């Protein structure tokens, strides 16, 4: 169990990590997600030991790591650039940690062979990093970091340099590998879809703090604030104010829409400002005059659309003055294809799809 307690790191005036606390469970796939400059990499570097916190503590299974240098932490890192040693073969790269620890040569050979097999690199042991493809380099980095069985593996955007197809394949492999070795992975990324796909829990970071820490499904379905809703997936966010509280519902006055009811799932008070969040895939399109499938319906015009293969994303300008993104699965039954710019449509959604997010 890795505990981060009130850790702060400043660079001059800039506070990179601000009194941050969180706990990573043993064997967990944990992700730090956030835009660049949110402090996720700084936090990772403090876990590895390359940065010292200005305040706070980092504990691994109860032991204080704060004063332990990186070379003596049972924590290894996979660097964004992989940082493979260019003058060493694949086998020497993978066996590096064992060699530094003075493990006998025969045992190093045996364990390197074992590790290379685990990442499907058998037979490439005599190659140099410059002779490998991007995916192979990534596997070497993984094998090198795992060979002497660290208690935690830190991964700093390890897939950022790969193309999409390979990235998806490596995502599956990382998840499989993490289950096999059973140690906690702390994964840093700015790619929200990667975070959702891989992790058991995700901490969304912004300006050195955690905005929300939840499992992926909860994070997507119940974002706690505007930042998280905007960062995870795409989301229509319309400025709103609470007009009244009616039992388990909130009556909102929404810019460009007017008054509507949404379920109440957080503390709220009359007069509170915030945003109405609507996921684009929860909105429905129908032709004007047809019965609308949702509880709330607005007339509007198609302002533009993007064909994305599996879905089409429509930009709708409602008559009431709001702009909404609506996503439709291509090939879904109902509305016929080909809503061109300027076409009159009706946007509707079930009442429960709307959520109020406080500022």
């Amino acid at each position, binding site marked *: 169990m890795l505990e981060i307690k009130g850790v702060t790191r400043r660079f001059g005036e800039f506070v990179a990590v601000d009194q941050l606390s969180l706990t990573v469970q043993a064997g967990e796939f944990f992700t730090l997600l956030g835009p660049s400059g949110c402090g996720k990499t700084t936090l990772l570097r403090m876990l590895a030991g*390359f940065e010292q916190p200005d305040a706070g503590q980092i504990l691994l299974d109860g032991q204080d790591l704060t004063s332990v240098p990186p*070379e003596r932490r049972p924590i290894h890192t996979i*660097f964004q650039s992989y940082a493979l040693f260019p003058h060493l073969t694949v086998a020497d790269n993978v066996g590096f940690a064992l060699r*530094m620890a003075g493990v006998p040569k025969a045992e190093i050979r045996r364990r390197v062979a074992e590790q290379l097999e685990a990442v499907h690199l058998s037979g490439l042991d005599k190659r140099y990093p410059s002779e490998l493809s991007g995916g192979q380099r990534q596997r070497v980095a993984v094998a090198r970091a795992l060979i002497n069985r660290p208690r935690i593996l830190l991964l700093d955007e390890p897939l950022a340099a790969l193309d999409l197809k390979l990235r998806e394949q490596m995502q599956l492999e990382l998840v499989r590998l993490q289950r096999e070795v059973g140690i906690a992975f702390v994964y840093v990324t700015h790619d929200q879809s990667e975070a959702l796909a891989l992790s058991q829990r995700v901490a969304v970071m912004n300006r050195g703090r955690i905005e929300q820490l939840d499992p992926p499904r909860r994070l997507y379905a119940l974002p706690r604030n505007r930042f998280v809703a905007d960062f995870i997936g795409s989301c229509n966010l319309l400025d709103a104010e609470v007009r009244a509280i009616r039992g388990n519902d909130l009556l909102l006055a929404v810019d460009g829409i007017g008054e509507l009811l949404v379920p109440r799932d957080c503390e709220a008070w009359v007069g509170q400002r915030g945003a109405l969040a609507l996921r684009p895939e929860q909105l429905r399109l129908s032709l004007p005059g047809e019965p609308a499938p949702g509880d709330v319906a607005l007339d509007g015009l198609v302002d533009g659309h993007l064909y994305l293969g599996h879905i089409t994303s429509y930009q709708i300008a409602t008559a009431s003055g709001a702009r909404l993104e609506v996503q439709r699965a291509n090939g879904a039954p109902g509305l016929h294809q080909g809503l061109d710019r300027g076409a009159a449509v009706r946007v509707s959604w079930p009442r429960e799809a709307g959520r109020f997010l406080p500022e």
Partner: protein
Amino acid sequence: MRKPPPSWLLSVPPLLYLLALFALPGLLMLLVAFRLPGDYGGLMPLWSDEDGALTVNLTLENFTRLVEDDIYLKLLASSLLYALLTTALCLVLGYPLAWMIARSRRRWRDLLLLLVILPFWSNFLIRIYAWMIILSPVGALSRGLNALLEMLGLGPVQLMFSPTAVIICLVYVHLPFMVLPLYANLEKHDPALLEAARDLGASAWQRFWRITAPLSLPGVLAGSALVFIPSFSMFAIPDLVGGTGGIMIGNVIKQQFLEARDWPFGSALSITVTLVVLALAALAAAAARRGVRHA
């Protein structure tokens, strides 16, 4: 459409340059080494016609003399030793300096590099004269050193006009040639490699010997070549500060051309020096090829 000029055309200027300034003089030197010296310097005509008997004045004597009189081979060997020692000392002194400059903050780096090349702004001979003052028996260095030795009950030493003086000046003059290529190499190292090594449990010592040292090998070789080659054939420094004990092969070559006026023998010595350097360079290149390939 005009055809683009063939690519070999590009290599014509450098080839001409090498031909005119390197190959031709070298060839000339090689040819002269088989000639006989003229009676008043210069060369004896290639053939002479005495009483109708045509004699061709070519000889191997310059090379046999070089081998038979062992003073030349000894000088060659001691010059080799001077050059190797100079290279080793420059490496030991220059590596930490280059490393320090490469690791210093960017705004300091240019200033530090400027300081490294600053000596080039004054004339080489003037800098050696300065060393003559420093090393002279009445100079502060000699006096301080001898005072220290006297306290330890040891006799006084003379720095000036000794092999020590030659080595000091050789190292002083050639140090920048070691520092600059080393700096150029070390500055390019990816700091993530050292972090990765540290992350994997390597101590500071291990990080240096396993990562930094092998990756800097090309810089070490370049610097060593730039120091070794001019040191080996140096004559000005031993002339000025070496006295009788600190003589090098370069002095003898200079003597043959300017004083003994035996151009053919001087050429033979020169050719030999060139061959030794080439042989060593080939040896170093062969030994380093494997290490450098992936660095």
